[in-house]
């Protein structure tokens, strides 16, 4: 009993510190990567991606909402990041279900590149990032005559976001068990 509550506290501390770390990296570092009009990389979706497999959908949306609002405060986007983050928070259980391995998920593992392998993780991350980025840029630009611009921006940003997220995982996450 005591062990369980200790583990619970550990989880709160762990995810809380990831949250702060990710918001600060996004707000103070990644937001300043301004290479071109076509590249707007985002690392913070990793926070939603890395929640445990069985994490409740309402809590996921809550995390996404708070995360998005915090990133918005740093980026002067007034709710845009919150909106995109909640979309992937809402769709994540469905997508996890679609790309489920044959024998389901092991609840002791996390959806990380170390635990689930490169192929699975890249599929999972690309799908979530694509939904996130295309929603983000459609809402941000909202002009049908610039649909080509929206698509290019989505694709180029996605490549860099994915790269940053993989690097982030290798730096800050360890394999769950060995």
């Amino acid at each position: 009993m005591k062990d369980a509550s200790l583990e619970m506290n550990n989880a709160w501390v762990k995810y809380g510190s990831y949250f702060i770390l990710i918001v600060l990296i996004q707000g103070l570092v990644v937001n300043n990567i301004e290479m071109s009009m076509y590249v707007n990389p985002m690392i913070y979706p990793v926070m939603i991606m890395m929640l445990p497999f069985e994490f409740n959908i309402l809590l996921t949306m809550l995390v996404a909402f708070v995360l998005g609002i915090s990133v918005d405060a740093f980026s002067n986007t007034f709710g845009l990041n919150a909106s995109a983050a909640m979309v992937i928070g809402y769709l994540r259980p469905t997508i996890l279900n679609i790309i489920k391995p044959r024998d389901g998920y092991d609840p002791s593992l996390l959806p990380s590149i170390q635990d689930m392998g490169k192929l699975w993780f890249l599929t999972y991350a690309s799908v979530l990032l694509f939904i996130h980025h295309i929603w983000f840029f459609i809402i941000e630009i909202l002009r049908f005559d610039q649909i080509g611009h929206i698509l290019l921006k989505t694709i180029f940003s996605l490549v860099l976001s994915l790269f940053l997220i993989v690097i982030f995982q290798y730096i800050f996450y360890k394999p769950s068990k060995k």
Partner: protein
Amino acid sequence: MRNLIQFLKKFRDFLIFFVLQVFVLTLFFNSKNYHRSKMTNTSSNLIGWFVEKKHNINKHFSLSEANEKLLEDNARLRAQLPESFYQLQGDTYYVNDTLKKEQFQYIPATVINSSSTKRNNYFTLNKGTAQGIEIGMGVIADDGVIGIVADVSDHYSIVMTVLTEKSSTNVKLLKNNEYWFLSWDGLDNRFAQINDVKRDIPIEIGDHVVTRGGGTQFPEGIAVGTIDEIIANDGEQTIGLNIKLDVNYNAVYHVYVVKNMMRDEQLNLERRFTGDE
């Protein structure tokens, strides 16, 4: 029965999702008008503190470039001092000018956070209400117009630059005072656009565009850019202009917030004249 509960759960999830989406999207679309933005941004004290710390680390990398710009500006201003003019006439009279009254003052500020490749680009400045900055004031740099103060806290403010969706700066053609609104299509941060220009105005590539003045935000004649391209589509009544902006928004370090001493007077008069129904 189980299916029904399952369905109700799904429906509840969607409903919560939908309500939250409506909430944040309302915030986002309202923020496009600067006087309606009601959300935490980089001008708030906490976020501003973080951003300023980041700036204090980063500023060393751009110091030499920023200094060079200041030096150039000093040289230009020095050339306008009375001492740098050769006196042609021996006896000149000193006139205490009562014909002119100071209208604009400039509050210098440093850009501590900026973006220039997003759809809506904002600058965060290290000055706020404590230094006399108010929402709606214009902001300029040495080489041209930057934007309008959108939000302000005690020690920080954010500027909605020309490179935002809803920005519309009053501009005019330097050579014949034709005036329009300047807007930005979001595709390239070196060019802004002027739409709905009448076809019979003599316009050439390379003509200078400056602020019109007359509003309360900018003095007249602040540089904006030069005409780079004339877009004339067949069958349309008007033409569009692509304006090469004078300011390189990727590299703005120091700006001036324009304080119009007669702003309240003008706004009160205009309100009295148009609003009292």
